[in-house]
């Protein structure tokens, strides 16, 4: 047992790892991030709240500029400052607010207990060091192992993520691997110290579908073995549907909907989620007429519209949507686990249940 620097909540430490006594690994509350640029202040995240439990997969879904990657960076504490600043909110890991921890203590969490897989494995790996050296760095720095032991652990880790002939390839450089293999090396680095939380940013976007399936399967296995919580950050509605337990949908730096995966796909409640689900061409729909699309473009973060940020593109918008402050994320009645949506008209009969997923249509 040890007290954290805030002096309030005791942290149970087990094998260098903090323990979430109630199973709640991460709790993000009212997180706010802004980028101070020459053109003005861009509010990239405006009051985002969510939690993650053990063994759970939470997907954060959003398009470019929605703030999903910035959320991940803020949780990890790897936001580029300047221009990015966390201006409010808290990120609690096992009950301890990471944002108020001194850098040195935070370092023991980052990488070892909360780790991250980056989107582009080729640019995330250092091209001038062998991959084995880069993976072994985790053991040398966080666990203080010597080179020989660290390398030994690395080889077994590479076997874990199914890199063929791991012992021979441990001295190869990143460019000597294919895209799928590089992604496996990234995963090996991220899971090296058995993290409690893994944040995966677009882990399969750069990969072909057959390899994509292998990687997602691997992540799932790891999760089952260690009880790791997974935050999957992506824009791919297909991947999300197959692996996520709960989904948080982001738009222009806000959470607009948060729900269980089945409920979100079968009965989306926010007009943006509806539009998104309708506009995806699906494998099981025939060559159709026009694909429903959301009109217009996502807003510029430097010139946000008044009211709800989605209202200029929303087909249900009313006068109230265009003025005042954006609608808050509110709990909807009668759902377990709780589900949330941020829309003034969410209870309205015209809007409720009007999102028709394409599977219901016959072309």
């Amino acid at each position, binding site marked *: 047992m040890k007290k954290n620097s805030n002096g309030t909540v005791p942290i149970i430490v087990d094998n260098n790892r903090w323990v979430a006594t109630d199973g709640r690994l991460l709790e993000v509350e009212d997180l706010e991030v802004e980028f101070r640029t020459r053109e003005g202040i861009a509010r990239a995240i405006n009051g985002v709240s969510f939690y993650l439990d053990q063994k759970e997969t939470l997907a954060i879904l959003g398009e470019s500029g929605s703030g999903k990657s910035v959320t991940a960076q803020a949780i990890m504490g790897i936001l580029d400052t300047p221009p990015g600043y966390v201006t409010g909110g808290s990120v609690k890991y096992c009950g301890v607010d990471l944002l108020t921890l001194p850098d040195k203590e935070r370092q023991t969490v980052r990488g070892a207990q909360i780790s991250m897989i980056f989107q582009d494995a080729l640019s995330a790996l250092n091209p001038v060091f062998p991959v084995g050296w880069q993976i072994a760095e985790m053991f040398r720095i966080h666990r203080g192992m010597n080179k020989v032991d660290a390398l030994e652990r690395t080889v077994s880790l590479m076997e874990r993520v199914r890199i063929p002939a791991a012992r021979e390839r441990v001295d190869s450089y990143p460019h000597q691997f294919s895209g799928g293999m590089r992604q496996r090396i990234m995963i090996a680095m991220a899971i090296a110290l058995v993290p409690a939380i893994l944040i995966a940013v677009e882990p399969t976007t750069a990969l072909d579908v057959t390899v994509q399936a292998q990687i997602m399967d691997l992540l799932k296995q790891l999760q089952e073995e260690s009880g790791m919580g997974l935050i999957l950050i992506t824009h791919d509605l297909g991947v999300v549907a*197959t692996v996520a337990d709960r989904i948080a949908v982001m738009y222009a730096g806000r959470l607009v909907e948060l729900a269980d995966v089945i409920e979100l796909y079968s009965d989306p409640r926010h007009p943006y989620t509806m539009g998104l689900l309708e506009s995806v061409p699906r*494998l099981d729909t025939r060559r159709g007429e026009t694909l429903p699309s959301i009109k217009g473009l996502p807003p510029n973060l430097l010139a946000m519209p008044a009211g709800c940020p989605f209202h200029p593109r929303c087909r249900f918008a009313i006068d109230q949507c265009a003025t005042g402050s954006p609608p808050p994320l509110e709990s909807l009645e009668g759902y377990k686990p709780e589900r949330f949506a941020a829309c003034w008209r969410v209870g309205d009969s015209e809007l409720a249940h009007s999102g028709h997923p394409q599977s219901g249509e016959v072309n």
Partner: protein
Amino acid sequence: MSEKVILQASELVKYYPIKTGVIRHVTGHVRAVDGVSFELHQGETLGVVGESGCGKSTLGRLLMRLEEPTSGSVMFDGTDMYDLRGSAMRKLRRDIQIVFQDPYTSLNPRMTVGDIVGEPYDIHPEVAPKGSRRKRVQELLDLVGLNPEHINRYPHQFSGGQRQRIGVARGIALNPKVLICDEPVSALDVSVQAQVVNLLEKLQDELGLAYIFIAHDLAVVRHISDRVAVMYLGKIVEIGNEEEIYERPTHPYTQALLSAVPVPDPELKDSREQIFLAGDVPSPANPPSGCRFHTRCWRERTDDQKTECKTVIPELYEHADGSGTHLSACHFAKVRYNLV
């Protein structure tokens, strides 16, 4: 769509030499495209799908004649385009145009939208006389859903989806008969992707264009294509109409590919059977002998059959698919349903 064949590729081959050492000695070849044949009808969309490195983009470049083929021919309107020289070739280039993948790098940042879309007219002045060009460019911008007033803006003032519209406007400026779209929507966000797909379909209806639609996203390809060709390591392994490929595929690679695509419906995830392929795509510099897919094939075969796969290259033949036949290059082609 009509019955008239506008483009016919036969036995197209493109090898790139691999050079090593100080004297740049040729030690091998990357077989990017290795014997591809197909027909494209007027006003039709042929989708080309496959994983990275299967040669689909090289195929697009060959059809544009941005690359000279190692062997093979492409007949366009009755003439072999690789035999044409000088002004005859220049004239033909008007009829085959391309839209590139990345709208951020395929537009010159120092040129205005008007200059970008109007540049084809500098090269082919006979299409639009100088006086009428500005008006013509504005018409094109209007046609692709951009504000004609924005003719003097620069690419960075547009979003990704709008930039791709500029690329499409440039592609159709010369009234081509064939438009080659090389991953035209894969760099775009979902909500914007649908807008560009709809634009391409609208233009096809209005202008009677034929598309070669190269993409790795099988769902988008199904949505837009009349016929689909599946490529693996430089060869077409299966080709047929949209229904034949997606509902009744007979090649094990097509089947694995389809089963691997995640469907955006969580309720289907347990009912869909997924075929996992082991390993990565082999290097096109040293493709496997016999059937190129045999190293990753998941289908159960006897030892004799396996030997045949390893030694005999399967050709595209008509194979029964349960309701008719379509072309597939597998010795043991067998239909499989309910993959999507």
